[in-house]
């Protein structure tokens, strides 16, 4: 199969070729790869691509997948509109927010 046509990260359009190119260049750390390629930084936050990337990195480095540290999954769990968040803040009122704006 053509590595350039195998999409690993759907949100950011990162292919298997992109991942392998990074590995060849010596970037074999999931955290650094994420920050250089943006894989896992889109709307799904790596729910699809992270295990695939970790698998690639593990086999490149010759280590077991279960021995690899999983990057932090950050909130929110699903994308939320800024407008909704602001409404929640305003509904509660300044006093309950304990802060000045």
């Amino acid at each position, binding site marked *: 199969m053509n590595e350039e046509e195998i999409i690993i990260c759907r949100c950011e359009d990162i292919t298997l070729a992109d991942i392998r190119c990074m590995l060849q260049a010596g970037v074999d750390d999931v955290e650094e790869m994420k920050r*250089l390629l943006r894989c896992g930084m889109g709307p799904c936050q790596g729910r699809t691509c992270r295990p695939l990337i970790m698998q690639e990195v593990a086999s490149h480095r010759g280590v077991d997948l279960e021995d690899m540290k999983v990057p932090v999954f950050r909130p929110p769990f699903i994308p939320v*509109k800024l407008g909704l968040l*602001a409404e929640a803040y305003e509904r509660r009122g300044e006093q309950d927010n304990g802060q000045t704006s």
Partner: protein
Amino acid sequence: MARRAEVAIIGGGIIGCATAYELARLGMTDVIVFEKNYLTAGSTGRCGAGVRQQWGLEMNVRLARGSCKILESLNEDLQYDGDIGFDQGGYLVLAFDDSQMEQFRKNVKLQNSLGTPSRTVSVDEAAEIVPHINTEPLVGATFCPEDGHADPFHTTMAYAEAARRLGVDIRTYTEVTDIEVEGDRIRGVHTDDEEFISCGMVLNAAGPYSGPVAQMAGVEIPVYSERHQILVTEPVNRYQKPMVISFQHGFYCQQTPHGSFILGLGDPSEPKGFNIETSWQFMEHVAHSVLSVLPPLADLRVVRQWSGLYNITPDAQPILGGVPGLQDYYMAVGFSGHGFMVGPMTARLMAQMMTGEDMDMDISMLDLGRFDRGELIHEPSVV
């Protein structure tokens, strides 16, 4: 692996990697950078990524302007395969009352005298620069078209790769656990893989952990760390070129070349410490503050939030230089939230200082001794 190095740099962020490169460029290639995690894991990779020359103190304008100039040609100078993403869409600094505007006028005068092309703009002009801005609460703004933002990961990586090509040894996932001092000299550093590396000089570039690292050498510095939170939205077509900042609300808001918006906001009630968890309160608060000024952002979806640490000094200015009574120990710490944007210039100056070269600018006023002498430096324009 080498058991001796001329210079040991503690911290693999912008300061550590850029200083390693600048040292190597001056011929000092026997350098090891120790990073306890991955590169940029401390403050650099968590920062808001803005680069502005619009400061209220000559020293800050010069450090930021120098960094800006370095960033403009950094891809070529470092022969970087990627792109550091330096995007000079400008910075629009908002004024909400006359006294703020008065201070900004003074700042602009100073900035212009140092070559920075900033200017005051009317409310109407502000609305031309950022058409979706709510002009109602504004009294004016300042704008500098050379300001912008750069990608902290790629910028740091560009420096790290260039440093490696010149012979610098960069060791990630290697923590310095102690600094050995004998009399008034540095002997070397111990690492968590139980190695002792003797070295001629040490540079503390440990960002949020600069205090504990200084203590390893028996040095007390008046710094503390404080969490600051950020969020990023889904990417959309580019419609905001400049970074928009408000000292009034304490927020900054940029749209990256990639299309996502990055929003950050300081919380005056944040306790000191090393906490880098995130809070839902932040998400709501920053949404409320930013939407009051940039209402159309309401439809954007937040995809991720994170936090990082400011390393803060009593005057919110960095500590650059050595320590009396301890030779060969240097610090570039306490950037108080603007280390990335002054990093490239600071690194150049630190390398010049450590190799005894002539320095491009005088930074002696940023020494540790200023706190004892009571010579604190007050910058009026901190977010």
